[in-house]
């Protein structure tokens, strides 16, 4: 008699709702959509209700994104992921060496949002899956500087910029429309995710070290921001420098 009862904690062999009232989730009724997302965070609930229009608003308000499905919701099909490197790492234990795999993944749409993820696991597939999740949770907008006003839409870096890290030097050179990305495969993927369509690159140093190469590339991109082009010089409002104020003060004092 007691085996026929339902409730939590009863029956090890409970399948999809065969004890008790025989309710599983209403899958058989056909009224359920497949894989409906139930949000876990407050931001997720706001996104699901439609109160947030685009991913730019999230970056504008600096709201932490703690749920990967939010990114999926906005960037759906545009999001691509790319495995950058899978390397075995070893730990010495008393029973010999334990090898695990560390996966580095970059995800991004081609419109200036990029995320990098890393995960270590004993299986390659698990590591890659975990790294993709981690990358989605750590997505950030690429700081694109002001773009040249000569053409309509931005498509390349505004000036020649270089970034360096370790021994790696990465130089980005503007290119005319239609050139495409002239770079190593890794550089191509990262630049296209950053939203750059045409660029020449030149690199030097031990570019096989992924960490240094990516850092150098991002430093180069960041140098495009805040770089004052000559045609902007005349727009500067000349404010009094601190030294000027200081000498004014001193001269006043002397008069008294």
């Amino acid at each position, binding site marked *: *008699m007691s085996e*026929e*009862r*339902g*409730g*939590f*904690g009863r029956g090890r062999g409970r399948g999809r*709702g065969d004890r*008790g*009232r025989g*309710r*599983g*989730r*209403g899958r058989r*009724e056909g009224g359920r959509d497949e*894989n409906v997302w139930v*949000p876990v*965070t*407050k*931001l997720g609930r*706001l996104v*699901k*209700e439609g*109160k947030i229009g685009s991913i730019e*608003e999230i*970056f*504008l*308000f*600096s*709201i*932490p*994104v*703690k*749920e990967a499905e939010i990114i999926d919701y906005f960037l759906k099909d545009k999001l691509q992921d790319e*495995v*950058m*490197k899978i*390397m*075995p*790492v070893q730990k010495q234990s008393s029973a010999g060496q334990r090898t*695990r795999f560390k996966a580095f993944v970059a995800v991004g749409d081609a419109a200036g949002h*990029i995320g*990098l993820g890393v995960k270590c*696991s004993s299986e*390659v597939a*698990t590591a*890659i*899956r*975990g790294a993709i*999740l981690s990358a989605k*949770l750590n997505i*950030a*907008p690429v700081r694109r500087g*002001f773009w040249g006003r000569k053409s309509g839409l931005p498509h390349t870096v505004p000036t020649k910029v270089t970034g360096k890290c370790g021994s790696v030097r990465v130089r980005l050179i503007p290119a005319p429309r239609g050139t495409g990305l002239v770079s190593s495969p890794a550089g191509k993927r990262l630049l296209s995710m950053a939203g750059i369509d045409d660029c020449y690159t030149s690199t030097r140093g031990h570019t*096989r070290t992924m960490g*240094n*190469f*990516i*850092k150098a590339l*991002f430093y180069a991109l960041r140098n495009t921001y805040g770089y004052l082009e000559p045609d902007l010089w005349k727009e500067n409002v000349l404010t009094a420098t601190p030294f000027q104020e200081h000498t004014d003060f001193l001269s006043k004092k002397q008069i008294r």
Partner: protein
Amino acid sequence: MQLGFSNSLLQEVEKEAQLLGHQSPQWSDWDGGKIGGRPSWLNPRDLPEGILRCRGPCGKSTDDKLGSPLCFVTQLYCPADDVRESAFHRSLYVFACPKCCSASSTLMVSLKKSSANQGEMNSTPEHNLSDCIQVLRCQLPKKNDFYPLKGDVDGEWIKHTSAFWAKTNQNDQLNLCAVCGLRSRGKCPKQKKFFCSSDHQKEYLRATKKSRGDKSTNGANSVSLKYLPSLCFASELVVEEEPQPSHHATKNDFAKKASDGLFKSVEISDVDADLEQSDLNVLTGNSAFAEAATGVTDPTTLAFYARMAIGGEVNDVRDQCLRYSRWPETKQGSASIDDDDDGISEGPLWLTSDNQPPLQYENETSSPPFPPPCQYCGAPRSFEFQILPQMLHYLCVDPSEKRESDGGMSSQVLTESEIAILLEAKSKIESGVDLPPGFREQHERAVAKAREALLGIGESKTHSVPHGARVPLEWGTIAIYTCTASCGEGGVVSLQDIVCSVSSTEKERLRCLGSYREEVAWIQPSLD
């Protein structure tokens, strides 16, 4: 480990929807439980006296020192007749304070702030959020006054309803409040229904007026839940086993990707072996020091998501609301997350590394270990189940309204033009063009204000909830710990039953809960 899912009541036949919880005397059919709505009492006669109130900080600031009335969250049926014969029927009820367990409550905000400070130990704050949750346990032996001995009975059994006992014992108070389902205090002559307080009386009157204009209600005896803001939306709680970790059938894809990595790795000892997620975040400018800190590096959170995705696409369990594992044997505590841990742990699944309960005395001056032993019998307490944040979705969202992706546009906090202005200002600041003085500060202030309005975490002065609006509940996860002896013979609690040394006011408070015994809960604030 068993999982609880929410099953919508809309497709149910009207009659079946009434049989949730313990409303049907046919106890061989009892399964799972209930989410939202009104509680369905296992013991209909020995109910708690009076309204259940919050014992947390919200009561300290009011004039009469009374906490705000609690809101019913969920109940589940979890018999324990292998532990004790008098626990043949056993139900657990969870109530939460709508003022303290919301995003704007000062307690919740301070907990999140303390967890955001890096470099500090797990500092347990003075006010524990656990005071704002009340968990009640009720159990009955197989032979009792309310339910038939044989599981299946047809038709006319009414001994399990409160109305029957109200008439038998001539105790009018046993009639349940029409709004919240607790003991009532009196009958409203105009509406001809029982209510527990004047607040609920007024609320019911307002609700009947509003629903008169609504054609969709089918003239049922009771008012639809969407007009009663102190209640949450109701659905059924069904039980399923947690699936075993699935190994994807798409192994081929990953193998191909593995060999096609953009940076081929040749040597074992690589400079990149030490790169961690936080380093990568610095690269993209996403670290905690950057302006837009949006990332997640907490391994507990990542493990939580991995566990959600355990079924893969075949058996999607991400909409689980509840995780049940009675008194697991494994070592509880924040053990280091081992990446190789494909094995399934049966303890509570925490959301963040911070705000976890202290399991032993850390030093002489720290707070006592959690959970405290049972006040009634002195037996130790152990984890039984936890409520997940997905349940909030089912509690706070009206299932009968069609949900489109842009259906909420009209209720947006900021209009589209305002957002466009802010975005343009941001790009101007970033591009380094010279700006008029004070522009940057002004922009930051406007952004901060909009952010607070959006997330609903503003100051209580500027952000007062309009009368009659639904206060949104929020939590990360609530873990409930119960007495491992499952004490109690099914009768009303008497003062002698309470073994542990507590004050007499505390004993009196516990006695007033009738045959319902109190258990403890630990609440972890939400991820964002």
